[in-house]
């Protein structure tokens, strides 16, 4: 799609996609929404598909997201789990906000999990970190940094023996 063209191009901005609240649990494999393009009690489902499905797709790249149009008398979300079970969520005459809130509550990861995962990812991702469970054990592994004193003596200007020696 071209930049800022079409209906509500805001939905395609990275900021909007990243702001999606629903990150599905690990066990969810397929996320399907059934709704109709007409009828007042499908209005919330339509809004949900229009506004939130892009976010869900973006934040859950490993989940198949399906929308089924005009095949049902009342709208619903159906999640299939990896062990073959599934969960049916009725969204009849509910608004978009109510739907997303309930989904976060039922099939989404909790806030604590998300925060912890973000932290974990951060500590692994940041190449500046060193120490346990990082890419390098010590800063001395970088070329140009000071060697570990155990491997090679520190430069003389850093050693007390020479710094404080009487002249």
């Amino acid at each position: 799609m071209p930049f800022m063209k079409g209906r509500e191009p805001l939905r395609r901005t990275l900021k909007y996609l990243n702001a999606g609240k629903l990150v599905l649990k690990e066990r969810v494999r397929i996320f399907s929404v059934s709704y109709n393009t007409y009828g007042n009690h499908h209005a919330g489902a339509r809004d949900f598909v229009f506004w939130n499905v892009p976010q869900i797709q973006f934040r859950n790249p490993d989940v198949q997201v399906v929308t089924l149009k005009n095949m049902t008398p009342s709208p619903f979300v159906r999640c299939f789990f990896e062990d073959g079970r599934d969960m049916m969520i009725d969204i009849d005459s509910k608004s978009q906000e109510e739907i997303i809130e309930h989904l976060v509550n039922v099939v989404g990861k909790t806030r604590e999990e998300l925060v912890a995962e973000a932290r974990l990812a951060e500590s692994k991702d940041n190449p500046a970190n060193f120490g346990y469970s990082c890419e390098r054990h010590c800063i001395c592994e970088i070329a140009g940094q000071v060697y570990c004193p155990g491997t090679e003596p520190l430069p003389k200007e850093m050693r007390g023996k020479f710094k404080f020696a009487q002249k």
Partner: protein
Amino acid sequence: MLRAGCQLLTQSTVAAKTGSNNFALEFVRWRRKPRWLPVAKSKLFRVPERKKQSEEERTELMRLHNHYKTQLRSVRQYLREEVVRQQETSTADHIVLTPEQEEAEFQRCVEVNNAWNAKIAKEREVRLAKEREEKVAYVQERLEAGKLREEERRERANERVRYEIEQSKTFITRENLDEAIETALANPVDHNFAIDLAGNMIKGRSTQPQSN
């Protein structure tokens, strides 16, 4: 061990302080008393006098003490939190659930969802009942309107039939055809007319205007 021994020693020697003791702990001192020697006999029952503190000195000391304790507590808390944070970020243990926990969590979600579905089902029942009623009322109304329309149409048709029957009395039929022809021939009608500039209609082919 040494200290305990010393206590025993002092207890045993308290009774016979002035008398001779078995150990004959007498030392000649040229400088400070070493740590391991017991209290000197001349200082044994000396009670050191407590230093007198004035009121403001006491409050000032208390203030400093409180400050120090608060600061130390906050530093300790910060360090403890830092350790916890470090542990959280360095491992994934605290977010990985056991299968039983996962199952329990799933059951909780299912229950929440069932409650939600039941609530919506109730609302939908109400909505559908209302819609059904509205539909029934609408159909009823349309049926009645249709009946009315049909009646009116029938009425109009009857009217038309009556009118035609009334008209049929003057129709020309095979029986009175000759009579009608004779009447027509006897009374010729001239449909020609002229219009003058004033807009007056002058009927007939041979009629002359009145004026002139």
